[in-house]
């Protein structure tokens, strides 16, 4: 186990280095610069002053080495668009907000999604099946900006207690959490339904039934536990996506999270912030994947990490 984790850790470092390198050269090859604004062009000499201030006048290779050096100390540098916060400060401020929403959304999706899927499978081709599948089709196909706007227009505007947007209290988190949870909820439900149907036809379920175990016990102990495996393998990416925040949801609900930075940093060519959020996201993703693999191993004893060529 320790050896395995150590190996994974080394691989993680290599992966992150590759991500840094690719992102760095990719973003510098895109036209534009961090100081351009839509309404105003900047005279050349002032641009030179700005380039010098942020070290962008140095050769790319030197900038790259500098960046690697700083990142080894977890210093993401100064944002080129904000003169107020460093990239570290921006991430430290935005991530807890996004993660808070993300965790709530995961809880919602994880409680409702598999339940919905399991019910659909148990009542295959009956009304509960249709209802839960309609819900999940809506969840998968309605884009989050539509869902968000819909919730604001029809729920928040009519329920006084639910704010239209902003951040601060628990009630601010309710609508965005639901909007965020819809997509994974629907995916979980569909996945659960199909894997549950498959499991229900397995011999061991028939064996369990014929042994005279109650229906509830068969479902809970044998069927659900086996059917939930595909969802567990999806969890790693889903959790990291959700905790890293969603640009659309955060923009619509006016939430000061991390998700916004993924898009705005690229749009602004805020090089340090682009690198910062990319590397940070990569770290979260890699950690989550590792945790999921460990969880997988614990749930399913058939998977032996060290032996089967992993």
């Amino acid at each position, binding site marked *: 186990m320790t050896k395995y984790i150590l190996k994974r850790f080394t691989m993680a470092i290599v992966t992150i280095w590759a991500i840094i390198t690719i992102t760095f050269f990719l973003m510098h090859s895109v*036209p*534009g*610069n961090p100081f*351009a604004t*839509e*309404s*105003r*062009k900047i*005279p*050349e*000499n*002032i641009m030179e*002053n*700005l380039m*010098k*201030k942020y070290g962008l006048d140095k050769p790319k290779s030197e900038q790259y080495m500098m960046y690697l050096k700083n990142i080894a100390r977890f210093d993401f540098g100064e944002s080129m*668009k*904000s*003169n*107020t*916060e460093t990239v570290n400060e*921006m991430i430290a401020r935005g*991530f*807890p907000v996004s*993660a*808070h929403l*993300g*965790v709530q959304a995961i*809880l919602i999706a*994880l409680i409702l999604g598999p339940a919905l899927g399991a019910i659909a499978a148990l009542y295959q081709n009956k009304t509960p099946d249709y209802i839960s599948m309609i819900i999940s089709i809506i969840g998968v196909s309605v884009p989050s900006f539509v869902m968000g*706007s819909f919730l*604001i*227009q029809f729920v*928040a*505007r009519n329920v006084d207690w639910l704010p*239209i*947007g*902003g*951040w*601060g209290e628990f009630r601010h*988190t309710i609508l965005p959490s639901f909007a965020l949870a819809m997509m994974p909820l629907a995916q979980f439900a569909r996945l659960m339904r199909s894997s549950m149907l498959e499991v229900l036809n397995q011999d061991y379920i028939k064996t369990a039934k014929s042994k005279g175990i109650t229906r509830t016990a068969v479902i809970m*102990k044998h069927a659900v*536990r086996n059917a939930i495996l595909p969802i*567990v393998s999806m*969890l790693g990416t889903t*959790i990291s996506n959700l*905790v890293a925040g969603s640009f659309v949801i955060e*923009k*619509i*609900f*006016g939430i*000061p999270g991390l998700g*916004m930075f993924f898009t705005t940093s690229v*749009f602004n*060519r805020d090089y340090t912030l682009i690198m910062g959020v990319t590397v940070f996201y990569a770290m979260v993703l890699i950690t989550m994947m590792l*945790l999921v693999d460990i*969880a997988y191993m*614990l*749930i399913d*004893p058939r998977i032996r990490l060290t032996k089967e060529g992993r």
Partner: protein
Amino acid sequence: MRRKFIAMMSIFLVLVMLVTGCSSPADETGDETDDAETKKILKTNNSSEPGSLDPPLAQGTHESWILENVFEGLMTFDEKGELVEGMAEKYEVSEDGLTYTFYLRDAKWTNGDPVTAHDFEYSWKRALAPETAANYASILYYIKGAEAYNTGNGSADDVAIKALDDKTLEVTLESPTAYFLELTAFYTYFPVNKNVAESNPDWAKDPSTYVSNGPFKLVEWKHNDQIVLEKNENYYNADKIKLDGIELDIIEDQNTAWQKYEGGEYHINVDVPTSVVAELQANNNPELNIGLQVGTYYYNVNPAVKPFNNAKVRKALSMAMDRETITKNITQGGQIPAYGVVPPGLKDESGKDFRETVGSLTEYNPDEAKKLFEEGLKEEGMTVQDFNNAGFVLLYNTSESHKKIAQAVQEMWRTTLGIEIGLENVEFQVKLDREQSGDYQISRAGWIGDYMDPMTFLDLWWSDSAFNDVKYNNPEYDALIQKAKTTTDQAERMEAMRQAEKMLMEDMPVLPVYFYTQPYTVKPNVTGIIKVPVRYPIITYADITD
């Protein structure tokens, strides 16, 4: 085993909670709402997170809207929107219009220090220092020696800003500038407290160390969330300030902000979605104000591409555009069709509107357009067929409204001139890049004026201007601009600029489309919000009645 899974999941979530330090988010104080009932707090949205609240580092309205409430320059706008003395009690201008002497009033910083002429000298030189890398340093170039210092070719000592004593500031300009007084009300000209800024370079990052001299002070700045201003009781003109404070949310989404305004959470909303403006206008909603803005929306025509090098072709394109239709049916925000480049609202020597005196310099005339176009093409040895085969495109930065306008113009050119021009949208940075390298035929552009003088527009097409996208180069035009920039005689200046605009529209290097407006909505119980064309709506003197 199932228990193990649940345990594992819980560990996951707890871990995430721990990592993120996810405590109860209910740290909002409850008494804020109680205060709002007794105090007059204006609530609104600032649409974007300020990059910096240090005046020389500010870049746009998302910063200046805050700065204009917490700082005050030598001159300022009063409650009627008139330019009046601010930090300066009075001023003198030398005969040749080059030297300005400002005598400061007894005003205090929010930390109790007196505002001195040394603060101004320090601040302006700080804004010019190359290390500061102020985006907007060029607006200080009117001062003698300023450009040389900012570009690294001169020293701070050679910049002609001098504090003669604590209360007297002397400034010498490169050449007489009729609108210099107004510039001193602009945010890059705001003073910062010398002692504070020298001892703590990070003073502007935190409200606790933030020191300003305006009608309000910064008390809270929750990034990407909310900014809170409180009335500055030490402000010399505090009697004129009716509000006890201003709360500005930072919500980027126009529609969400609008929903909050409609739901009664905001007193004023500035960035109103286009579709909402159209609807409010159709219903004659009294909450809607169409503020005047000095800005022009236009298309650049690349003269390096044949046949756009021919003025007749460019004029034909302009004459084939039905601007009334565009403003009435597409933009729908009260925009004004543009038949010149200088927008209305700028006064000439006799106090008349510059735009009105000059009149329309282009028109919608399909027949004349067709005739000119054919002549122009013939002169370039091309046929309409050649033109259409060339695959010319109109380039614009990705946005729903630019797209609609471009589609309309495309159709107008097709029906009037029988030509096919494609549309291409790119991200604005890519557009800038392509304009710079000349890789375009026609491209969308816009300009918002910085000060109330036609020069803020006409200067753009001066051959040396950094903003001259079409690389317009006409020595006669340059001579007129040069004349307007150096003469002290108002009438002569204005005449030179009138001539310059006529000359420009005769060559038509750009096709003006419309003049911008700034629609904003104000609740009926709010009074005293004023709109000066070069500014965002001024909320400083607002009052809330019940």
